């Protein structure tokens, strides 16, 4: 009953491709068969409603069918991908996983019962509501991963409204709210998911050319990597209509460069959180970081200190391993500092990442954007370091382009500071610049942040 709207849609589009996986197409008729096979399998295993089931998998016909069959079976689903496999035992413990289902790269399945009961109050609440659930872990780049638990019935509601069908690459991972959103959006509108083996620029761009992909939901970091690698010169990307970006602040310089290269591709910013789902958003234009966020089921407000708060009908019940983050009147404090212009907002950065230089605020994203304007800078991360004199100072960790790596560092620093001086106030210019040859992004193609020194 929870996935009836999807099943109806699949039945109407039996011949259409639902997924392209391992270079093979899987049509909606096949997906329906697989869903039924999984439903039989789960009923043979006597899987009870409210059982916490971890799925360790990547996108594939089998993992998608299993996810839908588990929703129908009212399971509480914990998706897990290779990128966080080192945290698997922690995640099993926190989520109180009872059954572990693994689907490997060849689509082979293993099923393992690992615990009898799950008794967290939020899990019991979902059982009482007789609804399926979803547990998502935050990336936890700056601390422990928090487990957000959702009522899936509520989360599915917004996908019932028909929208445009796209051929889309599920770039964001299977265990990420953005990935879950791409998956459900695409299936609910009988679009097609083009699954990529990895997320290297060449692999992704080749898949766009080969399978006429129209929509790429991705991260600013990936867009920056595509620009750097210049791989886009090798492929025909004319099918690509829309690129959406979210998960972290977009450097304005990256946005401008991408748009100059691909003026026909619409660039849209998305806004979402593993705690609330993805909001509907509308960018002012392809080169603008201003956007409207909200849509049915979401209300927004901005606090006196400019932090975005959201009230969502589909918001999570709470965390399994942290106190409720909701305000007394039920709003979620995002921790994102925003600027407002009429109906539009612009995210300046995480409140916790803002650097305070003698009482003046510095937003890392703004400085990173200026650093990335230099063609010899491949990646830049800006962070604060404690300073006894003025609280914090601005520091930058920079990865240079390969051809610059051997140049005199002192001369490069002077060039960087000179460039910053023309674009920034003196307190915003990185006082310390370090060079590092390592890439700065995580398995989720999100910039990895150095812990701020704090005040």
């Amino acid at each position, binding site marked *: 009953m929870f996935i009836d709207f999807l099943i109806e849609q699949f039945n109407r589009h039996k011949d259409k491709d639902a997924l392209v996986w391992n270079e093979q197409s899987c049509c909606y008729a096949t997906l329906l068969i697989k869903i039924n096979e999984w439903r039989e399998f789960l009923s043979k295993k006597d899987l009870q409603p409210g059982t916490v089931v971890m799925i360790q998998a990547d996108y594939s016909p089998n993992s998608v069918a299993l996810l839908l069959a588990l929703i129908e079976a009212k399971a509480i689903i914990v998706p897990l991908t290779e990128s966080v496999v080192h945290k698997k035992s922690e995640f099993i413990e926190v989520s109180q996983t009872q059954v572990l289902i693994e689907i490997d790269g060849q689509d082979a399945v293993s099923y393992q019962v690992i615990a009898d009961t799950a008794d967290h109050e939020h899990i019991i609440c979902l059982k009482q509501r007789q609804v399926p659930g979803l547990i998502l872990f935050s990336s936890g780049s700056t601390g422990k991963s928090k487990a957000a638990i959702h009522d899936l019935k509520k989360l599915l509601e917004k996908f019932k409204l028909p929208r445009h069908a796209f051929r889309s690459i599920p770039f964001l991972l299977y265990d990420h709210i953005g990935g879950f959103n791409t998956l459900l959006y695409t299936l609910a509108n009988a679009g097609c998911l083009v699954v990529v083996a990895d997320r290297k620029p060449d692999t992704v761009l080749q898949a766009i050319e080969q399978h006429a992909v129209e929509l790429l939901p991705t991260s600013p970091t990936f867009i920056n990597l595509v620009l750097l690698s210049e791989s886009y010169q090798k492929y025909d990307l004319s099918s690509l209509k829309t690129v959406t970006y979210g998960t972290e602040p977009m450097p304005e310089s990256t946005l401008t460069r991408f748009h100059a290269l691909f003026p026909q591709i619409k660039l849209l910013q998305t806004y979402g959180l593993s705690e609330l789902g993805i909001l509907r958003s509308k960018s002012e234009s392809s080169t603008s970081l201003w956007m409207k966020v909200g849509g049915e089921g979401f209300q927004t407000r901005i606090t006196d200190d400019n932090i975005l708060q959201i009230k969502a009908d589909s918001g999570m019940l709470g965390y399994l391993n942290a106190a409720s983050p909701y305000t007394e009147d039920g709003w979620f404090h995002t921790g994102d500092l925003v600027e407002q212009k009429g109906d539009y907002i612009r995210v300046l950065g995480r409140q916790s990442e803002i650097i305070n*230089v*003698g009482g003046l605020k510095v937003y890392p994203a703004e400085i990173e954007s200026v650093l990335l304007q230099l063609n010899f800078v491949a990646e830049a991360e800006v962070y604060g370091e404690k*300073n*006894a*004199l*003025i609280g914090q*100072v601005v520091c930058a960790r920079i990865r240079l382009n390969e051809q610059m790596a051997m140049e005199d560092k002192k001369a490069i620093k*002077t060039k960087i*500071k*000179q460039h910053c*001086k023309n674009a920034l106030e*003196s*307190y915003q210019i990185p*006082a*310390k610049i370090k060079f590092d040859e390592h890439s700065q992004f995580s398995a989720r193609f999100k910039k990895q942040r150095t812990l701020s020194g704090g005040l």
Partner: protein
Amino acid sequence: MITEQQITDVIYSVIDQMNELRDQNLIDKGLQTPLIGQRSQLDSVDLVNLLLGVEEQLEDEFDISFVVANEKALSLKNSPFRTVKTLTDYLTDSINQ
């Protein structure tokens, strides 16, 4: 062991680098150049940059790791950051201790 002259040279070299980025209000290179206070050409951000520059150069050239703007320096009755000379004296003493 690092000499007073070596430390003064480090400070001057950092001042040179800072002046390269300044169009006006160039910082004088002299022992009596004030680093703080009304007569100083440096604002607080400049001072921090000067001290961080000195730290960096001490590390690069002499392999000396020393946080110049530390709590102790800030709590001294007579600030070591008054002039190039007082900063030199403070650093020479602290590092050679």
